[in-house]
Structures are given as C-alpha cells and as structure tokens.
C-alpha cells in the first residue's frame, strides 16, 4: 500500500528539483518545507572555465535525509537495470526520486526544450491495460525485444508525483499525480545527451553542495546511501564562490550589462527567484509579520518575481540591437534595496540565513 504523502500545500513556488525533493523529505520527521525555506541562499561559483557560473541555492545539504542516510545520484546504461534499481528503492524506502527530462514528460509545458527535473515515484502495480508493443522503445533507441528483460517493465504501472507547479514563460505548469506505464516512465528518464554544461552544474548543485554525477547518457535516480559525512565534503563549496548576496547581485548585474549573451543562466536566476519568493512566503506564514515588516517581505518577493521577466526582455532587446543596461541596473537596484529591508525583517524574526546573507555594512547603492 502506498503511503499518502504528507505534503499537500505549500510547495508552490519551489523549483523543478526542490518541489519533489520536498515531497520526498516530508515523509520523514521534521518540517521539510521549513527546512528548505530556511536553507535558501544564492551563492555563485566564479572560477569555472569559459565564464560559466555555478549556482548554489541552499546552505545546508538537502540530500541528507535524516541522521543516518543521504541521497546520491546513481545510474545505469540500460533501461531494465534502471527499473530494477528503482524497484529496489521502492521496496526498501517506499519512494524514489528519478532524474527526469521535462521535455519527455507528457504533462510538462516546456515543450521540446530538455530540462533536468526530479520526479517522485512512490508505487508500482501490475498494469491494468496492455501496453502497445511499439511504445516500449520510443525515444529510447531500443530495438524490438530489447530492454526490460527482467519482467519489471512490461505490464507494470508506476505511480508518479510531480508537485512542481509554476507560471513558466511557456504557460502555467500544473502539478501531476497519477499512474503511468513503463514506456512513459522510461520516456521521462530519457537522458539528456549531450548534456549542456549548465545542466550538469544544476544537477551537481541541486542539494546546495556539489554531488558526484554519474556518467553522461545514463538513466539516473537518487539512491539512499550511508550516513552523511558532514565534515568532509558534504558541506563544502570547492573553488571560488561568492556567498554574500550583495556581491552576488553585483556580479549578476555586471553579467547582464557587460557580457554578450548571459541567457544560458536565465533558468538559474529563475530558480533563484522561485526559491527567494518561497522563502519569504514561508516566513510570512511562519511569523505572521504585520505593517512595514510584512510590506518589506512582499516587496522583496515582488522584486524577485519581476527579475526573470526583466532579464528576459533585456536579452530579447540586446539580441535585436537594442541593449537595455539602464533597465537591468534599475531592476537590480530595486532588488538590492528590497533585499536589504527583507534581510532586516528576517533577522528580527529569527529567520536569517546566518552563513550567506549580506554583511552588516552592506548599503544599497
């Protein structure tokens, strides 16, 4: 019998990684949404080749499930081995997160653009309807009769939970919960190849700190492994990182006003905006501030919400020869001002992010 997930409200506004990670974590003691909200930060790695940036959105390792175990990427080159491993995780833990490709999920609004996405699988059962023979290998490069040799796939349905919901540029992405066939699950698991560097970096830092990635081109899931190593590697950011939000915003403003095409990082900024607005919404709910304090949080959330649209527009304009540096500067100036006020409110309410929020002498420019 499938356990009923305890998360029913509140995950709106999380990213395509954290929305279903929250659903996974919520089956263990503690308030998963509050844990994620408190962990939200924006740190940027600046020493990668070719001007690439890596983003860390959490200041505690969210792959630590409890005191005894953690989640780590695992993979298999063949679909049947991946399904076998997913089944083992289901048997042992009652749920498993798989690394999906949003472009191959039937309910995704993102169209054909590939995008990594955590998907929760929390049950399996014998299929109630026969699956069409031709459906098995679609999109997987499988020939007839290949794969699923263990009998795990054909004749099986999988219960998937996708709590990710957002107003995406392409339209409203609704959440999805339901049974899908093995071919449909394998389509969701279709590896993104070749994998863009920004996707690899997002997968690597999905939990806030670098995680080991499996070989490219394999079906991936998150396996429960041994105890977290909090002293060695689990909570370190190797390389050169900016963790102060004021410095991060300065860097991003410079990126959008001086570099020719920063659009590869638009989704990173969109995720940052999602996480920040989620954090402020949870803070509003948890501490119920009023008056100026509430207004400061609302303004910060609004400034983050407006950021992706402004940067998209600036990008559009620059590509057609009408760069908008003043718009970008105005957008970041508003964000800096709003962040300063919101930080003071968060600190006063005991909700500060102690490791990464701005330094006390930070002043808006």
């Amino acid at each position, binding site marked *: 019998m499938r356990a009923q997930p305890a998360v029913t409200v509140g995950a709106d506004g999380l990213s395509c990684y954290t929305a279903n990670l929250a659903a996974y974590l919520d089956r263990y003691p503690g308030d998963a949404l509050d844990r994620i909200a408190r962990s939200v930060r924006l740190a940027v790695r600046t020493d990668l080749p070719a001007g690439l940036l890596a983003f860390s959105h959490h200041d505690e390792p969210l792959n630590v499930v409890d005191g005894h175990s953690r989640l780590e990427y695992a993979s298999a080159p063949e679909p049947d081995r991946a399904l076998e491993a997913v089944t083992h995780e289901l048997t042992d833990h009652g749920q498993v997160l798989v690394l999906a490709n949003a472009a191959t999920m039937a309910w995704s609004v993102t169209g054909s653009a590939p995008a990594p996405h955590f998907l929760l699988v929390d049950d399996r059962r014998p299929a109630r309807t026969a699956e069409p023979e031709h459906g098995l290998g679609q999109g997987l490069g499988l020939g007839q009769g290949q794969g699923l040799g263990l009998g795990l796939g054909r004749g099986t349905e999988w219960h998937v939970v996708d709590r990710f919901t957002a107003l995406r*540029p*392409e339209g409203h992405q609704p959440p999805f919960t339901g049974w899908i066939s093995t071919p449909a699950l394998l389509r969701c698991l279709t590896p993104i190849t070749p994998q863009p560097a920004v996707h690899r970096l997002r997968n690597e830092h999905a939990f806030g700190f670098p995680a080991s990635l499996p070989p490219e081109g394999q079906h991936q899931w998150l396996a429960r492994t041994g105890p977290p190593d909090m002293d060695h590697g689990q909570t370190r950011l190797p390389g050169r990182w900016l963790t102060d939000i004021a410095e991060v915003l300065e860097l991003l403003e410079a990126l959008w006003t001086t570099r020719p095409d920063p659009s590869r990082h638009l989704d990173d900024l969109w995720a940052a905006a999602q996480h920040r607005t989620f954090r402020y919404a949870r803070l509003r709910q948890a501490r119920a501030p009023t008056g100026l304090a509430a207004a400061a949080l609302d303004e910060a959330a*609004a400034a983050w919400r407006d950021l992706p*649209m402004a940067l998209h*527009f600036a990008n559009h304009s620059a590509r057609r020869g*009408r760069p908008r540096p003043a718009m970008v500067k105005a957008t970041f100036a508003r964000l800096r001002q709003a962040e300063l006020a919101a930080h003071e409110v968060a600190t006063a309410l005991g909700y500060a992010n102690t490791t990464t929020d701005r330094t006390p002498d930070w002043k808006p420019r």
Partner: protein
Amino acid sequence: MPEPSDTLVDAVGLAVRRIVVRESRLSVDPAAIRDDEPLDGELLRVTSVGLLGMLVRLEDELDVTLPDDIFAGRSFRTVADLIDVVTSGCAHSPR
C-alpha cells in the same frame, strides 16, 4: 509630463489590439477587443513568453522605447494594462 493625446492613445490601442489578436491566433476584428479583456482568459491566450514578444514587436512597430521600470511591480492582466505601458513609452520616446 503632458497627457498623451487621444490620437496617440487610439493608435497605441489599435496596435496593441492587433498584436494580442495575432498572438492569440484569433480571427476577430481587433477593434472588438475590449480594454478590460484579460490577456490570459477565455478569449485571449497570452503567455509570459508571448507577452515579451509582443512588447518587443510593439517597440519596433511604434518606434518607441518602453520604460526601464516596465516590470517593476507592474502586472499585465488586461489589454488596458498593455496600452498604458506602451503609451507611457511613447511619451518618453524621442519623436
């Protein structure tokens, strides 16, 4: 700042209506679109990406520069919201 003239508001209104009809792939007379028609409602279907594309096209068609604070705390819910922001862009643009 001087109030925009009726002629300007009419010209912007017509351009906006024409573009939202095209964006929503409708076969209706643009003049029939009401000011309070929701951009993402029963009749018009404008996504965020569509809105960005429309703003870009309106800048080109009307030869205006939309204000730098166009997204700052502003919501684009109806046709009138779009007309207002483009009209303010016309008022700020050198002619």
